[in-house]
């Protein structure tokens, strides 16, 4: 089998739908789109979103050499909808208001208003206690739009937070 170019777009037929992903066929090749790669926003169960036999465009993301499966993505066909790409357009140091979703000993998971998840190292909090549900001012420490992954720093508590127009309200939250 000739491997398709990474980054190309294939048309493939939905072959099987599981909770964790959608299997498709393109000629003799098998593709899988794992659940996180389906959509930036739509969190409905995959069986509600896909029907066996339908034809879909698939963005070729990578190749799983061990299992000989093409790893695809639907959401990357629409990069303009990525909440992480929205964040990449903000000025460095822009202060965002995030909500503490979960905490561990070392870090906290922060949900931003546009639905992006970020990891906040507690060492950046300078000893400030974080509790689930707290709203906290944060700035972007590092951002990988393609993966996507986001690392955050805690901003000083008395800094006025802004909600940039690029980051809409919590209505877009995936949960």
């Amino acid at each position, binding site marked *: 089998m000739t491997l398709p170019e990474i980054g190309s777009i294939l048309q493939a037929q939905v072959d099987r739908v599981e909770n964790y992903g959608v299997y498709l066929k393109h000629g003799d090749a098998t593709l899988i789109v794992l659940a996180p790669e389906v959509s930036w926003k739509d969190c409905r169960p995959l069986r509600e979103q896909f029907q066996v036999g339908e034809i879909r465009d698939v963005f070729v993301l990578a190749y799983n050499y061990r299992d000989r499966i093409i790893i695809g993505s639907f959401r990357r066909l629409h990069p303009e909808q990525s909440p992480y790409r929205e964040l990449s357009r903000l000025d460095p140091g822009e202060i965002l208001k995030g909500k503490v979703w979960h905490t*561990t000993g070392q*870090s906290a998971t922060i949900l931003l208003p546009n639905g992006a998840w970020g990891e906040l190292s507690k060492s950046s909090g300078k000893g400030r206690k974080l509790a689930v549900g707290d709203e906290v001012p944060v700035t972007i420490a590092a951002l990988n739009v393609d993966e996507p992954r986001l690392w955050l720093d805690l901003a000083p508590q008395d800094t006025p937070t802004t909600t940039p127009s690029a980051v809409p309200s919590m209505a877009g939250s995936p949960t």
Partner: protein
Amino acid sequence: MAVDEVTLWKAPQPGRDGAREVVAGFDPQAYPGKGPYFALDEQLAREYQSNYQNGLQELYLPQSLFDDLVRQGVIVADPFYPGRSCHVPSGDLPRFNEAIKHGTPNVYHPEGT
């Protein structure tokens, strides 16, 4: 979490008893073949949780034990997410289940918490 521990995250699929699994372990019969998959970072697990809507499991095991299990092929790298995920083949789950009893007590976060 202790400093010398590894944290594994898993979003249980709909219908799985996430609370029971963090205590009793993962049933090989319920996870045939390549077994259950675990994220090494919480963000990845959260992405699956967004679809599954069935809470989040947080598992701890000592770093040295984790390293041993990787060397022995009990914990296997996930080629779909290099460096971010792993899986435990069904036949190795009894050893894995024993290992996750040796760290900080495992936690299940029900959906919405």
